[in-house]
């Protein structure tokens, strides 16, 4: 069979305009497919995993946008005393855009030592020392840095907040690459004196044996009578709740992913059907020469497989490049979903293209192999 591969390539090349259109159509569809997959993976990463299930987020009751949640910072001390609580991290969040946006800037103010302890940041440039000692220092996630063209020493201003970049970091947690970390006190003061002593949220880390739900209840119970009520959820639930609207949208977009697969199927099948109709006589000649019907079937299948796989690989490679170079993300209410390209997604994309290529070739291949030689030879 491999001896006929050059023939298949030459046949594709002979109709290069048609081949090119089919391949590029397939590539675009697979590109969209991978983008959708990347968003879904990003969303999944936020709501699953160890951290999402075993870390609690304390937020002000009935508040949504980070700007509107103002918890007294000394709640941290009270929560720390609960049994099962390992550590409490006060965080001030500031974002320039609370609605869903592709270019929202999210600041998180944290105490430097807590930041270092609870976030796995790998500094690509800059250093921890100048971050901890300088008041207006910021550590910028790699994706924000590349999106906004920031590097160490740059001054960066969003609204009332003005920082100097003291480091650019890369984190294994993709969503973090879209954050900018500052010192807690700095972010508290940046937006006027009224914010001093308040935080947006408290991140509660638990001991291995503690039950997250019990402790969440205890926390909310404890502050029910206090000046500010709280809502405590696991980090996963907090993020899922915050992104509920977006998640619904992403769930819908998921169907578009299937639509892309359908599109590729009909595109490649149409081209293959046309190729078979063009070559009714040619296939009859091949059979006369002695090609088995099954081999004719194989030739058609190979052709459709090549078209689809070629387009698929182009689309997948293109999307992976785009995704990793642009570091795209979508954020709402201070929580970011990173578009996560991954090897698994790439393999999934190429597999889809391969399977679709085979499926698209079955009917035309069968038709070509079943043609009566004599009547096909009479064909003009």
């Amino acid at each position, binding site marked *: 069979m491999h*001896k*006929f591969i*050059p*023939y298949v390539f*030459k*046949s594709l*090349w*002979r109709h290069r305009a048609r081949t090119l259109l089919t391949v590029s159509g397939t590539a675009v569809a697979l590109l969209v497919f991978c983008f959708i997959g990347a968003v879904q993976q990003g969303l999944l990463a936020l709501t699953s995993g160890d951290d999402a299930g075993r870390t609690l987020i304390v937020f002000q009751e009935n508040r949504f946008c980070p700007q509107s949640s103002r918890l007294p910072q000394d709640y941290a001390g009270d929560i720390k005393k609960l049994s099962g609580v390992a550590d409490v991290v006060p965080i001030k969040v500031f974002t320039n855009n609370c609605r869903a946006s592709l270019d929202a800037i999210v600041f998180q103010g944290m105490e430097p030592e807590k930041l270092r302890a609870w976030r796995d940041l790998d500094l690509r440039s800059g250093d921890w020392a100048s971050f901890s000692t300088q008041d207006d220092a910021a550590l910028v996630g790699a994706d924000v840095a590349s999106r906004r063209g920031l590097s160490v020493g740059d001054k960066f201003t969003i609204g009332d907040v003005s920082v100097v970049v003291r480091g650019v970091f890369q984190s294994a947690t993709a969503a973090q690459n879209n954050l900018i970390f500052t010192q807690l006190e700095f972010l508290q003061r940046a937006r006027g004196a009224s914010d001093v002593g308040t935080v947006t949220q408290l991140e509660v880390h638990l001991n291995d044996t503690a039950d997250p739900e019990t402790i969440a209840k205890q926390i909310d119970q404890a502050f029910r009578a206090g000046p500010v009520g709280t809502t405590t959820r696991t980090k996963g639930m907090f993020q899922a709740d915050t992104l509920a609207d977006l998640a619904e949208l992403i769930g819908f977009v998921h169907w578009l992913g299937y639509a892309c697969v359908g599109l590729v199927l009909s595109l490649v099948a149409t081209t293959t059907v046309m190729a078979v109709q063009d070559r009714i*006589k*040619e296939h009859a*000649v*091949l*059979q*006369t*020469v*002695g*090609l*088995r*019907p*099954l081999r004719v079937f194989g030739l058609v299948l190979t052709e459709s497989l090549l078209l689809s796989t070629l387009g698929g690989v182009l689309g997948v490679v293109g999307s992976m490049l785009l995704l990793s170079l642009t570091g795209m993300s979508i954020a709402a209410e201070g929580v970011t979903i990173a578009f996560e390209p991954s090897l698994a997604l790439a393999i999934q994309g190429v597999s889809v293209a391969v399977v679709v290529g085979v499926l698209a070739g079955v009917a035309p291949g069968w038709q070509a192999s079943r043609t009566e*030689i*004599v009547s096909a*030879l009479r064909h003009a």
Partner: protein
Amino acid sequence: MSLVEVSNVTKEYANGEETIRPLDGVSLTIEQGDYVSLMGASGSGKSTLLNLIAGIDRATSGEIVVADTDITKLSRGKLADWRAAHIGYIFQTHNLIPVLTAYENVELPLLLLPMSAAERRKRVEIALEAVDLTSRATHYPRQMSGGQEQRVGIARAIVANPTVVVADEPTGSLDDETTEQILQLLERVNNELGMTLLMVTHDADAGSRAKRRIRLERSRLIENGKELQTATLRTA
């Protein structure tokens, strides 16, 4: 045993209410090294008979034995393998594969046989040499004249050294001069390469060049004024 034995073959086509029967119990034997021409009116069933012997069509009844194989009993796949090994088919219009060069077109039948690349190369070169087209090996069909294309078609038909070479009006669409070239070439295939040849033709001159001349009339085969009988009857 003759090389080709067609016994009592009938071919029917159902055409709505009526049945067309271009071949009605015909018999024919062809010996190794024969050069047989088959003539007859248009629509008399010449191509039908040729296609049955070439194994690309199925008889309604009767037996066709070629080189000891009853090809009417073979499955589609087996029949394809058999064609690859035993039949060289020369079409009226060359029917070359447009995306392949002359060389690749001639090589095509050899790809289906167990053969080393070196052996393939040697055979293709010999076949192209035989039709005097060595210099056109890398040309595509659209870059060649009708006569040259037909010669490539002949090279493709003989390259695998088949048991029988069949030709359906091989000169049907060529001018006189080219027709003469092709007929001489076919004679050489028969004389010098010793291949058995069955040629369907409309052209009386072409037909008379063959060693044996058979006519198909009213669904019967006639040679030298007598109807051909089955092999067993004939020897009796």
